[in-house]
């Protein structure tokens, strides 16, 4: 068949050439068309999750990044910079102790993004509105009532003395415009353009849920000064690609994994480190024999080398845990916290004091081998394995298994476990201690059998004097570390890299209630 021979090479060639031609076309077109004219200054922030909800108070997702996106549009009475509380909507404030009330003097040159003047009426309205529709991050019962003294003065009566009032309420509750929200009955479904009218330095120009992108435009009438960039963009880039995007100059800032930090520094990017806000803990079932014994729990603490745990399981990118829970880098940290430095001999001694005897490799009591069950979610597999090895080295047999996270939570909640590993954030403000020591739920140690500790916890929440409160928080750490209802294992390091065009900083005690993200809107104003 002669015709076959002539046709074959042609088809073969076509098969190879067609895709090649397509690739070339695409390349040429895109390479030519990639240049974009940019007349305005813009700043792009990379995020691997992307979508954090519509940036309005009732529709952003209840995680830190959701609040941050909202905080460029909506403001609070007070705010924080890198060292302390600073004026926001309120330019001055005063605490009236006998009435347990705060008087806030408001800025008189603030306008909402639609041009309407901001007044004390908006603040009063916000606190009244949250009584019906509570804002997800603020306990609306803490403010008894709000009263406008004049057009730019507002008085908030507290329902009880509450030390973290600025952190948890005045610095977190976004103020919403009365003229818009007074007609909104279902705030969770309010997602039109009116829902993003705030007083902040930026207005929302676009939000895309599926692409996880946000576009903000500067609000030129902002009362604290002209915003530093005209356009602010949040774009979604997968975690592994953020460093490349930073290096290629596609984005100005983004969070980077610890392993990549030195490479980022070589690329002349600025690295900033978050103050430690999160801890992983060994959760102990203190309701159950033998873990109900304080000495036994202390033996566990002596047996685990937290410094090498950090070296091995976190490759050094963390701070070893302090048994008092507050990180040593925190202002609230008590320097005298019992540390339980690694001492396997001391651990064995404590166990022997509890009538355990070492037979073969493991401790026994009344002929029964000492064996504990350790359960954890898969993310803590390495840590769990390390803890198992360390405890077995002193003679406590460990049955370690990783389970689906929900199952772990449910079993911890039902006290159906011996040991577990769990992590939580919020360590900037000592009110977290109440939530995770005596609070309810699986994420709390639910340890309420030490009356002194209970009283101290309660007292620190209502102590309005900062120095005296610190004294109480110190005592809490001492007792907590002594009783060890749970043991903090480590505080991971978190990093952001940026190109230095905006001086990003970590907010003192975190943004609002304590968000460890260096995207304080003040960095984009000054």
């Amino acid at each position, binding site marked *: 068949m002669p015709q076959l021979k002539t046709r074959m090479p042609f088809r073969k060639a076509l*098969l190879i050439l067609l895709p090649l031609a397509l690739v070339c076309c*695409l390349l040429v077109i895109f390479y030519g068309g990639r240049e974009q004219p940019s007349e305005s200054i813009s700043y792009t922030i990379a995020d691997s999750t992307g979508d954090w909800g519509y940036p309005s108070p009732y529709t952003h997702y*209840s995680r830190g990044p959701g609040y941050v996106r909202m905080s460029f549009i909506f403001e609070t009475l007070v705010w924080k910079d890198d060292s302390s509380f600073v004026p926001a909507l309120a330019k001055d404030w005063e605490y009236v102790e006998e009435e347990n009330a705060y008087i806030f003097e408001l800025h008189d040159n603030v306008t909402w993004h639609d041009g309407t003047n901001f007044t004390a009426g908006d603040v009063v309205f916000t606190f009244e509105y949250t009584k019906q529709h509570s804002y997800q991050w603020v306990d609306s019962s803490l403010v008894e009532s709000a009263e406008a003294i004049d057009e730019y003065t507002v008085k908030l009566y507290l329902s009880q003395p509450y030390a973290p009032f600025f952190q948890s309420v005045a610095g977190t509750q976004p103020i919403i415009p009365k003229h818009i929200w007074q007609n909104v009955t279902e705030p969770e479904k309010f997602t039109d353009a009116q829902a993003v009218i705030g007083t902040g330095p930026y207005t929302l120009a676009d939000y895309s849920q599926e692409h996880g992108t946000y576009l903000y435009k500067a609000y030129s009438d902002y009362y604290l000064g002209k915003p530093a960039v005209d356009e602010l963009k949040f774009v979604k880039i997968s975690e592994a690609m953020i460093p490349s995007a930073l290096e290629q100059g596609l984005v100005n800032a983004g969070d980077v994994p610890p392993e990549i930090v030195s490479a980022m520094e070589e690329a002349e990017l600025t690295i900033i480190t978050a103050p430690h806000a999160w801890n992983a803990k060994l959760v102990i079932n203190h309701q159950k024999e033998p873990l109900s014994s304080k000495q036994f729990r202390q033996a566990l603490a002596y047996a685990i080398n937290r410094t090498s745990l950090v070296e091995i399981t976190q490759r050094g990118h963390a701070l070893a845990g302090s048994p008092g829970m507050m990180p040593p880098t925190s202002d609230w940290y008590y320097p005298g916290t019992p540390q339980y430095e690694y001492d396997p001999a001391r651990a064995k001694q404590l166990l022997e004091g509890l009538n355990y005897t070492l037979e073969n490799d493991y401790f026994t009591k009344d002929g029964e081998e000492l064996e504990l069950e350790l359960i954890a979610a898969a993310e803590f597999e390495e840590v769990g394995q390390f803890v198992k090895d360390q405890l077995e080295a002193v003679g406590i047999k460990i049955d370690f298994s990783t389970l689906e996270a929900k199952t772990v939570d449910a079993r911890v909640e039902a006290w159906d476990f011996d040991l577990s590993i769990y992590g939580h954030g919020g360590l900037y403000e000592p009110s977290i201690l109440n939530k995770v020591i005596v609070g309810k739920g699986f994420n709390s140690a639910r340890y309420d059998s030490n009356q002194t500790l209970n009283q101290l916890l309660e007292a620190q929440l209502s102590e309005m004097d900062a120095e005296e409160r610190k004294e109480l928080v110190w005592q809490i750490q001492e007792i907590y570390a002594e009783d060890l209802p749970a043991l903090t294992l480590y505080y991971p390091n978190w990093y952001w890299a940026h190109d230095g065009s905006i001086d990003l900083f970590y907010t003192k005690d975190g943004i609002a209630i304590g968000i460890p993200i260096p995207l304080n809107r003040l960095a984009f104003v000054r």
Partner: protein
Amino acid sequence: MRNVITYVIAFLFILTLNFLLPRMLPGDPLMAIYGNEALIAMTPELKAHLVERFALDQPLWQQFGAYLLALVQGDLGHSYYYNSSVSSVVLGRLPWTLLLVGTALIISTLLGIVLGIESGWRRGSRRDKSLLTSLMAVSGFPDFFLGILLLIGFSVTWKIFPLSGAITPYSGLSGAALVLDVLHHLFLPLTALTLCHIGASYLLPRNTMVTVLKNPYILMAKAKGLPDRVVRYKHAGRNALLPVITQTGIQLGRMVTGALFVEIVFAYPGLGYLTYEALLARDYPVLQGVLLIVAVSVLIANFLVDLSYSKLDPRIRYAH
């Protein structure tokens, strides 16, 4: 008709599973249905409302009734993480998955068929051997691995293609430029998926060709003096298509989540990526919604395959 009944039974079975699974999880079923977000978002009134809506205080069969009723009304549930209905979240992602996986499936199937037929026609030739070896080698890689290789080569090192996403955000592009931007972002994930799928759709027609070519009617066709191309595609090729259709049908069903890994690698906003995000956030309503859609699309794809069989090969009609 009997066929339709089989499908209905399968569909009901899937619905039952989808209904039962979250209720069998440990802990509060409401928490299991709504995930962790509910912990934060749920006020007592809302909780009461949800318990009523899902009839959670009723016996199981009444709960099932409430579940079916909601489904009939197009209500796939409410995601507390996204603070919107599951159907709207899923529908937002569906077009991107269809674009990516649909295109990959079409290209890989067509290319696979043509290459397979060509390869099988001259089995043992050098071209056949080299095609077989190279396609098998490429398809042997997991799709995400190919994706990572392409990404590191073309995006990180040579900076020819974008690092992630489906469009350049806020580039101000429109019209043809926007279409090209979408294609630019589509290229690498599409290549990864196509290369992975092509092996399967190449092997089947190739193997069938080998058997089909032994049949007397091929000899007959050749003897009639028909051009080679006609014998190859019309006589032999058509018969080699059947298994490919089956396989494409199966792949079509998995289309919705088939690109999960590739979508994660390229942060492509499709259903696979949504599934991944929902898993991380433990957003059970979204997971269930995706599961249901996958299950239904598998059923529909199978049904379509059944239909197309009898069109392609009339013998099937007499088989029953």
